[in-house]
């Protein structure tokens, strides 16, 4: 037992090591660009150097003359062959780079060069010349030419702004109020694995190898774009080198590469450079916030207003819409919210780890800290005063809410009682020490899912579900669920995922995977149990004959009822079968009758945490200690403690790892991560890992994750709340409050820069 594998508390599974760890440490785990493909041609993207205007002419003669060049595909070459991409429903954008000559953003794809070798394709791509009719672009907030529209109704995912009571009246009664603005920057996911697509056709069927969080959705989307029946499309993504939302929606490149392979009659692979990924993939939109919060002197909040502005592209209304969460976080009294979209000449943003919560909860939790200061209250006590078991918008109860338990456990481990209140009152030599805290929250979403489980007489189990191992450990926990339900050792389970030919699973996004996949696996396993139990009790003889199925259990390869046992293998022999296979469809409570049929068609019906009779959220509390140098203002995070409650924890080892990784993301978000923009050209400037600063090992000092015991039978059959996107939500605001505590500077705009602290 070591630190990485914490002892399970109540309602937690075993901390087994991940099922694919061995493959990963030996380099044998094959990511899509690792797969050997015979006779593969290499493709390189040519992208636009302007952000707005029209492509007037493309000069490809020099490029075509490069030895080894096989094909160049550009605007106009796909007419009639490829459908336009669509935004939403597993598509990242409606920008159709090879259908239109319109340039919507810098770095937009304008052509694809295919050659025998990667070198030849790169060399030729550099020789493609394009003429443009350039127009002045609007880069984002504050630029001339932007368009601002209400978010409510602009996207089906954001029908209305949540509100309750009469904000204005309540605001007028407040004894203490704050009225502040906050902002968060553009960020890029930057998973370690580069983006790539490999497409091969055989006999009218296409196989696409690409890291994906949604193979079933992509299969259907790709089929539509390629104008073929989905039966002829297979998307394979066995291992994914990090995703964080970036591989959720399919980008237009995928169909373009598949089309290039069809045109050429030979497999094509395209590995996108890190720089090009900044504009041909998605990103986290920058946001701005205006918060008004009114409270009484005893600390009760009576009025809360959260207005947000979010950047999106000209053609697509991507809505972040985090007010759904912030409006339900505390017992506020009256609530008013409003979200607007700011449309600029940019590529379309999309989901990035806790898409709504990261920016919106950052703003809210900063405001909470400001209010605690204004009230001269301890920030933890201020949250306790406003903790609630009923959310304020519709007055629904939370299915479970262990927020204050998280605060108490984390505060204790952190040593919060050692904090002295005065600004700059804690020092260590030339370092100013600051301590802060903030709430982490993530809705417990769940989605329809299917799975197939097979148990063979020799005790081996195979689980199949078209979910995705993006690093979370979903293979591992699915195996644990099957092992537990079928009374078999963990090592006897094999899990197949990441292939659209498997029973479909939802997008691995919105922290739904563990809950959805485990619920489906559980259902399939229970059907196998039912068959076994039925055989055992209806047998003419045998130890379990005549018992009620409800009295039976299963453990260590045996069916058990008190002292009476029968080996599973015996029961199967009795049934005259060598294996039992069950396929199960799980549709969450409240799903439509078509939920499963729609899942097969790639249309996802996710049930959100706010839906249903009870509101379902996972909570956590994060505490941060920062050290800021008196002279240079260099800022280091010296300690982090987070306590999280997320229902049943399938595996404390993988759960802890997710939460820890998330907290470190939060540190990056607080101090480093921002995609900078040259406003004049609407172009990203720090498009590499040298200048886009993700945390490095030396940034990470002392991190502690506490898993708080919690049981919630309402969320889903597995009792699981997703936690992959919980850990990073509270950190940035906790860092900002710690910085305030150390320096008295309230930094409302992320990331916190050294120059802000001078």
């Amino acid at each position: 037992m070591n630190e990485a594998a914490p002892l399970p508390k109540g309602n937690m599974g075993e901390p087994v090591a991940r099922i694919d760890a061995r493959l990963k440490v030996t380099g044998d785990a094959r990511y899509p660009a690792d797969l050997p493909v015979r006779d593969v041609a290499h493709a390189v993207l040519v992208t636009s150097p302007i952000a707005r205007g029209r492509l007037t002419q493309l000069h490809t003669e020099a490029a075509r003359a490069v030895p080894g060049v096989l094909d160049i595909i550009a605007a106009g070459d796909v007419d009639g062959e490829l459908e336009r991409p669509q935004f939403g429903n597993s598509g990242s954008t409606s920008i159709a780079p090879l259908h239109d000559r319109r340039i919507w953003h810098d770095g937009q794809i304008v052509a694809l060069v295919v050659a025998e070798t990667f070198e030849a394709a790169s060399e030729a791509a550099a020789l493609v010349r394009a003429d443009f009719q350039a127009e002045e672009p609007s880069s984002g907030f504050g630029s001339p030419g932007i368009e601002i529209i209400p978010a409510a109704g602009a996207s089906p995912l954001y029908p209305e702004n949540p509100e309750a009571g009469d904000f204005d009246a309540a605001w007028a009664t407040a004894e203490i109020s704050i009225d502040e603005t906050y902002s968060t920057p553009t960020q890029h996911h930057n998973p370690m694995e580069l983006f790539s697509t490999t497409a091969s056709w055989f006999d009218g069927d296409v196989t696409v190898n690409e890291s994906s969080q949604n193979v079933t959705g992509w299969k259907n989307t790709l089929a539509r774009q390629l104008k073929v029946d989905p039966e002829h499309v297979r998307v394979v993504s066995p291992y994914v080198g990090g995703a964080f939302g970036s591989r959720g929606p399919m980008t237009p490149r995928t169909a373009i590469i598949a089309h290039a392979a069809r045109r050429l009659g030979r497999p094509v692979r395209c590995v996108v450079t890190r720089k090009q990924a900044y504009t041909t993939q998605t990103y986290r939109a920058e946001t701005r916030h205006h918060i008004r919060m009114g409270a009484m002197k005893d600390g009760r909040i009576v009025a809360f207003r959260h207005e947000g502005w979010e950047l999106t592209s000209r053609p697509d209304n991507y809505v972040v819409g985090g007010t759904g969460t912030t409006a339900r976080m505390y017992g506020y009294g009256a609530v008013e919210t409003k979200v607007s979209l700011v449309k600029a000449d940019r590529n379309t943003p999309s989901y990035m780890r806790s898409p709504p919560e990261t920016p919106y909860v950052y703003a809210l939790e900063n405001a909470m800290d400001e209010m605690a200061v204004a009230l001269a209250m301890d920030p933890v006590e201020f949250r306790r005063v406003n903790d609630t078991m009923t959310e304020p918008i519709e007055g629904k109860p939370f299915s479970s809410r262990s927020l204050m338990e998280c605060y108490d456990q984390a505060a204790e481990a952190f040593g919060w009682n050692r904090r002295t209140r005065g600004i700059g009152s804690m020092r260590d030599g030339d370092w100013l020490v600051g301590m802060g805290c903030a709430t982490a929250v993530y809705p417990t979403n769940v989605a329809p899912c299917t799975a197939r489980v097979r148990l063979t007489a020799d005790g081996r189990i195979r689980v199949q579900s078209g979910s995705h191992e993006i690093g979370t450990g979903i293979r591992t926990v699915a195996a644990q669920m099957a092992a537990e339900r079928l009374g078999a050792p963990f090592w006897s389970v094999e899990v197949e995922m990441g292939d659209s030919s498997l029973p479909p699973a939802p997008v691995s996004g919105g922290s739904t995977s563990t809950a959805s996949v485990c619920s489906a696996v559980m259902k399939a396993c229970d059907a196998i149990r039912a068959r076994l139990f039925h055989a055992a009790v209806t047998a003419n003889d045998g130890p379990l004959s005549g018992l009620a199925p409800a009295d039976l259990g299963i453990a260590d390869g045996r069916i058990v009822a008190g002292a009476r046992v029968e080996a599973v293998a015996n029961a199967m022999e009795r049934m005259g079968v060598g294996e039992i296979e069950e396929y199960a469809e799980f549709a969450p409570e409240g799903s439509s009758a078509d939920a499963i049929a729609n899942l097969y068609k790639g249309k996802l019906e996710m049930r959100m945490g706010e839906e249903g009779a009870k509101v379902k959220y996972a909570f956590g509390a994060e505490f941060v200690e920062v050290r800021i140098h008196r002279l240079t203002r260099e800022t280091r995070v010296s300690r982090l403690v987070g306590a999280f409650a997320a229902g049943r924890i399938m595996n404390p080892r993988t759960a802890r790892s997710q939460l820890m990784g998330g907290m470190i993301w939060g540190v990056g978000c607080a101090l480093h991560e921002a995609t900078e923009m040259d406003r004049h050209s609407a172009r990203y400037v720090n498009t590499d890992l040298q200048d886009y600063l993700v945390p490095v090992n030396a940034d990470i000092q002392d991190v502690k994750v506490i898993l708080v015991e919690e049981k919630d039978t309402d969320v889903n059959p597995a009792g699981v709340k997703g936690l992959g996107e919980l850990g990073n939500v509270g950190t940035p605001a906790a860092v900002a409050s710690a910085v305030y505590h150390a320096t008295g500077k309230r930094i409302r705009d992320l990331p916190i820069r050294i120059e802000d602290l001078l």
Partner: protein
Amino acid sequence: MTAIRSEIRFILNGEEVRLAEVAPDETLLDYLRLRRSLTGTKEGCAEGDCGACTVLVGRLTPDGLVYESVNSCIRFLGSLDGTHVVTVEHLAPVAGRLHPVQQAMVDFHGSQCGFCTPGFVMSLYALWMQDPKPSDRRIEKALQGNLCRCTGYEAIVRAARAISSYGDANDDPLAAERAEIAGRLNAMRDGARVEIGTGSKRFFIPASVDDLADLLETEPKATIVAGATDVGLWVTKFMREIAPVVFIGHLDELRRTSEKDGVLSIGAGVSYTEAFRLLAGRVPALATLIDRIGGEQVRNMGTIGGNIANGSPIGDTPPPLIALGATLTLRKGRSRRTITLEEFFIDYGKQDRRPGEFVEAVHVPLPAAGSRFAIYKVTKRRDEDITATLGAFNLMLDASGKVEKIRIAYGGMAATPKRAHAVEAAIAGKPWTRETVDAALAEYERDFRPLTDMRASADYRMLASKNLLVRFFLETSGRAAPVQVGRYEAA
């Protein structure tokens, strides 16, 4: 006349490779992945930033066979002549048992998505072979060049601490094979110059420094590549044509160092890692700085000579070397000249190096007894980050407490590494007091006009740079404990 060979030879894992078809800019990573289907080595950036492509390169040194971690994405294949390349595939399980490094990574949950994992395994492997019971600081150094976007690193650090409890480094295959591999590498040394390719695809591996000098006389426009930490990027990131290329990283003569009359002479081919060892006891401040340049892989590959010759305005070593009064030996053919380091930097991207000339050595006067020398580097992220500003200070006081000599140089504040002449003039000869320092601060505006970029604003650079002088004063006047900007060690 030197013999000419038209192929390169090296050992890849267990196998001897001879290649005649090599492009000057072909990277080791592309060779491994595309030509050899050794896909355990990953590509995460192709720009030397992430460490996913880490492999080990063993080379014969006067001290025997040494293995170091390198970034295969910016290491040119041609430069591997005479080396042993070890990839993650070489750590295959023996009788089903994982290698100790790998088992520790499994048990401590060092991977999530796993994409970074082979790179971490190789970095940890190099560390473990050099230091089976590493300190936390050593572990941190070894992992500086590896990024992980998933785990938050903690698990990997714990795995690193535990490796030796899974096996003995002396039992490791690379340790057991050492003599045999060294013998094979030795047998490959034929004293020949390597010439491969024609026209714009040519590259050379000179047989000796004299051969290099001759070669540059006939190929004055050639790109000289030592560690490839800069030139690798010219190719993978900026798509520049670099041929013809001359590789010099293998030349032991350029890796020599000597000390005479208080001046340390460092061959241009000495890597940062080697320089660190050399300087640790002599100029600790400089050694500490080198510790923060790039990651371990970059320090193993990059050379002091290269850092100088390429003249980056944010190169970290020139400012302290200027403050120490370093000089350079430049060689062309049989003739040599020596100039001060500051003279060498003419303007942005422009150095005083003539066609056919190369940097042979840098000579560093060691700080005199009684003098005070300090370097401060300011970055956003602590490690593996480009400098916002870096100041180096070299001070000598006379018996009365007056400033007898002061040299100050900065990086990140101008188009080249630059000396603060006006600031120095305002201080020299005066008593070393807060008043003197405060009065000198105004002179910064005369010496520097920094730019705003995404790393820092001009105002921040100016203010932080001034503060560095104040900090130097406080530290040297006994009014503040030396400040090491870095990891806070919890009590």
